[in-house]
């Protein structure tokens, strides 16, 4: 007798726990792989899940087994030309014996490493682990503008549609017990006396007494009944309060210099940086808008394609971009509704007289409204006047304004991490 059972709809993912345990155990390796992936990968697929490779020896479970050496006889199938007594050299690296597996690992890399894929979510988790948006909490509470109503217990006043009937009746009941207590106690006393009298043999005196008692009881009863069944005082209403909801909208400004000195490589690095920031914000906010501002001597708001790929030449006036950014913030993104992030990338070039204007604009018009302003300078040369000017801004606004220097693509991720590292003492 056989039973045939369809198990296809049973719980899947039985191995999830084991998989998680595995990932947890090899966290260090995975993190390293993720970091490498960020360096090497082309921009468009940075968001995909990632392949993680762990050396076999780190992952193997040791057991007692025979090592090479000793006397060993093995049986093989498929003899073609051998006869008993033939002798020949040990094949290199092959078989199970001979001169070892070390050589094999150098040749065929794939076989010796343990490679597996992690999902996109896991990838990003590892990528942004230990990072946080600076001063998120403080800003959110201060600027909360939207509200949501939440239930918060019961109140004694409110509009009729919020009446809570059970609570009201319970309150009424309690009130009746509390206020009618004295009378009822008295009534009980009198009744007892009455019953005692009734039990005795009938006599004139007792009859009168009984009559008096009955009247008294009736009177008290009436008094007790006068207590209202329900009173205004008993009514209870559902209490709803308005809770400020932190704004979960964010806007990210990408500001980039596109003047002649910005090569495609520098733009590429900038783009990676912007993408990292975008991915990171995406994990913290439901809705993100992107604003691309590029500039040479004039600033212009453009779409993504144009931002990264169109070619421009000319001089550089950074303040024009900051001016435009500030204008856009004023016009479209009220700080009360939006969490504003600005990322500026440049090779550090600026027209000499302009840097002071820049810091002025930043301090007066921008930094007070934004959550965070990150400036990355992508250059292999020495710093120019913009950097020094910005250093002063950084001193004035150490919380909101951050600046870092990137020399090549490999530094993007470390710099990004530095910018968003968790700060232990929090946001005060």
């Amino acid at each position, binding site marked *: 007798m056989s039973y045939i059972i369809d198990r296809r709809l049973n719980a899947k993912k039985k191995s999830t726990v084991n998989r998680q345990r*595995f990932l947890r155990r090899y966290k260090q390796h995975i993190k390293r792989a993720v970091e490498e992936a960020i360096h090497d990968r082309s921009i468009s697929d940075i968001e995909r899940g990632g392949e993680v490779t762990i050396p076999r020896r780190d992952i193997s479970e040791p057991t007692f087994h025979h090592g090479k050496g000793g*006397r060993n006889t093995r049986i093989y*199938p498929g003899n073609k030309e051998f006869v008993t007594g033939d002798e020949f050299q040990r094949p290199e690296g092959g078989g199970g014996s001979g001169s070892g597996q070390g050589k094999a690992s150098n040749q065929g890399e794939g076989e010796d490493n343990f490679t597996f894929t992690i999902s996109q979510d896991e990838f990003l988790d590892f990528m942004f682990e230990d990072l946080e948006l600076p001063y998120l909490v403080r800003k959110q509470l201060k600027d909360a503008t939207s509200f949501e109503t939440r239930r918060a217990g019961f109140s004694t006043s409110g509009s009729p549609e919020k009446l809570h009937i059970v609570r009201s009746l319970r309150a009424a009941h309690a009130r009746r017990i509390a206020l009618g207590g004295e009378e009822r106690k008295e009534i009980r006393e009198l009744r007892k006396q009455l019953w005692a009298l009734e039990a005795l043999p009938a006599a004139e005196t007792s009859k009168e007494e009984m009559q008096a008692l009955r009247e008294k009881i009736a009177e008290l009863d009436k008094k007790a009944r006068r207590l209202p069944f329900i009173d205004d005082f008993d009514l209870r209403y559902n209490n709803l309060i308005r809770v400020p909801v932190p704004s979960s909208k964010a806007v990210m400004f990408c500001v980039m210099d596109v003047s002649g000195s910005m090569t495609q490589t520098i733009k590429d690095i900038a783009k990676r940086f912007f993408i990292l920031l975008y991915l990171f914000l995406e994990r913290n906010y439901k809705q993100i808008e992107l604003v691309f501002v590029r500039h040479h001597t004039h600033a212009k708001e453009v779409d993504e394609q144009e931002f990264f790929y169109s070619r421009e030449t000319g001089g550089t006036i950074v303040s024009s971009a900051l001016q435009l950014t500030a204008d856009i913030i004023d016009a479209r993104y009220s700080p009360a509704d939006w969490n504003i992030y600005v990322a500026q990338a440049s090779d550090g070039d600026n027209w000499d007289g302009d840097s002071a204007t820049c810091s002025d604009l930043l301090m007066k018009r921008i930094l007070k409204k934004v959550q965070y302003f990150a400036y990355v300078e992508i250059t292999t040369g020495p710093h120019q006047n913009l950097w020094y000017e910005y250093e002063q801004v950084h001193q004035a606004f150490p919380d909101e304004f951050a600046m870092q220097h990137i020399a090549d693509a490999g530094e993007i991720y470390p710099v990004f991490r530095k910018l968003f590292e968790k700060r232990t003492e929090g946001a005060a």
Partner: protein
Amino acid sequence: MSATKKRSPISTGSEWTFDLIEEYDREIGRVAKNFGLDTYPNQIEVITSEQMMDAYASIGMPLNYSHWSFGKQFVETEQNYKRGRMGLAYEIVINSNPCIAYLMEENTITMQALVIAHACYGHNSFFKGNYLFQTWTDASAIIDYLLFAKNYISQCEERYGVDEVESLLDSCHALMNYGVNRYKRPRPLTASEERERQMAREEYIQRHLNDLWNTIPRKEISPEEKVIHYPKEPEENLLYFIEKNAPLLEPWQREIIRIVRKIAQYFYPQKQTQVMNEGWATFWHYTLLHQLYDEGLVTDGFMMEFLHSHSSVIYQPPFDSPYFSGINPYTLGFHMMSDIRRICEKPTAEDREWFPDIAGSNWIETLDTAMRNYKDESFIMQYLSPRLMRELRLFAILDDAERPTLRVDAIHDEMGYRALREQLSAQYNLGNREPNIQVYNVNVRGDRSLTLRHYMHNHQPLGESTEEVLKHVHRLWGFDVLLESVTPDNKVSQAYHCPPKEISIELA
């Protein structure tokens, strides 16, 4: 195959339905019964490929405790499967009563029928009949026991922390192969009994001091007999010894060691009967489906598809092929089983000389006897015929580290048959495959250090992960651990120490 076809085929397409599976199962069951196969009741479960990977990851069992190594297994299987590097096995079958077999939903009806014949009647009857399975495992209790183990371990994780339990399991897994009794027969385990005994044990251990560390002074011992050996006889079951004697373990830790040990013991027969078990199941799916064909119950197309999978399962790449990875147990097993049938039915003069007992006997009975009373090692020793050695073109290579070259020791010829057979049999002897390591001594009166001895076989030293395993032994034992490799003339050729005292010295 010119049998008169009286009946119409069960199916003609390749899609399967539950009705069809049921009908095939009924027909295959009927034929199997006619051949005298005795089986546990079958529980056939249809699952998805994803569930199959889950089953893979928990060593083929329907449930198991959680551990990262199973996660690793899963990740690896999933990766290989998705890249198309490997196909999943068509089936997994569990030695339980009822016998659980998994069918994958992706398979065609032909494959489902093949799996039913292979797993539900082949493996199943092997589990029920073979002496190793009968002595060492209790098919009716394993699922319950695994449930008990899973719950117990997850309780421990809650109480003592995942990390703590994980590292303990790591250590146990490292010694899993040394958690079996090779010769003593254990009591079959049942879950309810197990639970009761576990409580009793826990209480007992808490109440009593370990005998090993009993400090009440006894008679004074004369200095000559100072050298006390504990245990008196070397102990082969390391996990058992540690469970009972490790000084510092908590009761729950001993219980977890016990769980790993019990599971290792459950799988022990499977390791020793791989060739026979697969050979038996392959032989029967081949025989049973041919019988159905002869009766006209399956179509020519069905047979073509079936034979295609069958021949790829029993393909043996030659030793110099890039696909070669040892002798294929399916090939060897299937050919040996078929060969026994041939010897019974059409013996040659050579067979009569080599196998006077079985040549010309009833093949069903002879095969049944072979299935019941042998394991790989003895089965090969008993039944591997010269003719099969010639067909597989077997040859033996001697690799002696002391000689500069490899030597062909024997080939499939008159002089070589016996040597080949002996060597191949020895190759399946678990005692030769795994280093023989036993508990030799505990320094009871001194530093409580544990000495293990590796009794060398053919001068083979231990592999490179030995030091790592010793760390695990040290974690379980709690005091120093010493491992000595001993040559047959009782000389210590190499010593390992954990924690490392000095760099291990080559004495040889």
